[in-house]
């Protein structure tokens, strides 16, 4: 099967966009867990949530909600990207 230059270009663009989406998602992933949940907790200590502070909430619940949102966002965004580049499956 011959691969045209245009297809190669499209595949490169597809992969580049994918990497960008992954990197943005991972920045958010790290921010809510390692950031808000651990390292930045003192910074958020002024914000009260039910008897404790926002950082505690992020460490025990908030980060999990964000993780869920990230995975579903990625699935939706990549399926759209697959369609744009014509590399998806039926």
């Amino acid at each position: 099967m011959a691969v045209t230059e245009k297809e190669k270009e499209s595949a490169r663009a597809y992969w580049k966009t994918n990497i960008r989406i992954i990197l943005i998602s991972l920045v958010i992933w790290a921010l809510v867990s390692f950031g808000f949940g651990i390292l930045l907790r003192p910074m958020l200590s002024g914000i009260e949530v039910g008897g404790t502070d926002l950082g505690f909430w992020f460490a025990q619940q908030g980060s999990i909600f964000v993780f869920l949102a990230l995975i579903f966002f990625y699935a939706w965004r990549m399926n759209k990207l697959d369609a744009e580049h014509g590399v998806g499956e039926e």
Partner: protein
Amino acid sequence: MDQFTINLLFVGASFALYIGIAVWARAGSTSEFYAAGRGVHPVTNGMATAADWMSAASFISMAGLIAFTGYDNSTYLMGWTGGYVLLALLLAPYLRKFGKYTVSEFIGDRFYSPTARLIAVICLIVASLTYVIGQMTGVGVAFGRFLEVSNTLGLLIGAVVVFAYAVFGGMKGVTYTQVAQYVVLITAYTIPAIFISLQLTGNPVPMLGLFSEHTASGQPLLERLDQIVTELGFREYTAHHGDTFNMVLFTLSLMIGTAGLPHVIMRFFTVPRVADARWSAGWALVFIALLYLTAPAVGAMARLNITDLMWPEGTDGQAVSTQQIADDPAYDWMATWQQTGLLGWEDKNGDDRIQYYNDNDAEMQARAEEEGWEGNELTNFNRDILVLANPEIANLPGWVIGLVAAGGIAAALSTAAGLLLAISSAVSHDLVKGRFNPNISEKGELLSARIAMAGAIIVASYLGLNPPGFAAETVALAFGIAAASIFPALMMGIFTKVNDKGAIAGMLTGLLVTLVYIFLHKGWLFIPDTNSFTDADPLLGTIKSTSFGAIGAILNFTAAFTVSKMTTPIPQEIDDLVESVRVPKGAAAAAANH
């Protein structure tokens, strides 16, 4: 009906359900059994993955570790869920596109090297075996309580049941059995939590109850908890006490370990399309999150209940009397758990009361002096009993206690049996047949699988009797090993063009350095008292052995890139393979190739 009979009924009924479904599904179609979930909807697949994933560590052990440590053990919550983000973004879609069935096959093909495959198999066996040790600890607790025998006898009986279950084996592959196991497990976990949340806060949703008002005191629940534990000299529940660097490393190790464990990754090989692999990871996390969002509430509320029971007049009043422990039905759980040897108390000062406090705290020592106490008298409270004892501690009806027993056994059994199957097929298929004796008969292969399984369960039971830590801590070590060895190899296989020698150097470095670090702290081959350091005072700065996986992974990447740079680049066909793995198109064709 007494509690023992109720427990027996619930555990028996849940077993009948799994076996019934297995028989029904198998009779339905044999081909579906072998297809192992191809054509299964992502939601169903997600639920089955959640059942596979949530073991004794998540169900039995985790909330107890959170309850007695507080905020610092949030690491388990973030680590064991955050890994799914890595799995969904970095591995699952590509491994599905690659279209083989096992992790070691991917590593062998991508790095065009039987040696790389062999090392991957060894990494998988080491990680899985460590994982089983943790499961056996949980099995011992669950069976000990449910059969009302000592922890040791419970573990031995449990080992026999797990072995039989794994030999019966095929059941494991049936997605619908796992769906049933998930339903039993999540119901067993959430129902007592709902009851307790209602009792303490009036809020029926435990994860909201955790941040609500404690009805009895009118204070926010967590504030109340902070107050009473500090009054007894314990550390403030919501505050950060441990080392921050170690906490970050530990969370990271659990996350990348999650994305490197074979029995989870395998499930994404078998969904129909690449898009489904992406959705499946999300659905798996939805079902896992139902338990993980409830766990911190279970931990905090149990800690509050236990403290209130030990100090019925409040922390500045009199401690509970031995008379009350013996007579009051609200304290029956203490006698039941005492039988397992995992809970103990001793009236050291002979005042007929049991004082529960932190006897290492200076202020408490002063109070003890004044009141004539001679040390903490709740001498033994094994963290792993908390979840199973929780409904009894909260005085919930007998059927809830039976349900939790069934749930705990489902969690421990399904994962332990799954891991034994993974170990036995790795030994018989990948090692014996693939490496040492390619001409072995099918019968011989089966026999070697059984021997491997029996060997694994004996080793795991022996070490499970003297475990390197509580169930979840031992399991965390397994994650560290997977994080240091498998995850980097998979990631480099997809995102970089590292060559065979690089991958081999990386995996060996990650595995060996991490294993040595763990053994130095937990004993060589986990044999007690052979360790040179402890996690309280680790070899390198503040890095505990449970957190070392992340460092091992960094060493793995570094070794792989360095060696790869100095040796021949990958051949053209492997380059093409990497490019093809990166786009979803043609996944069905790739799957049809074998």
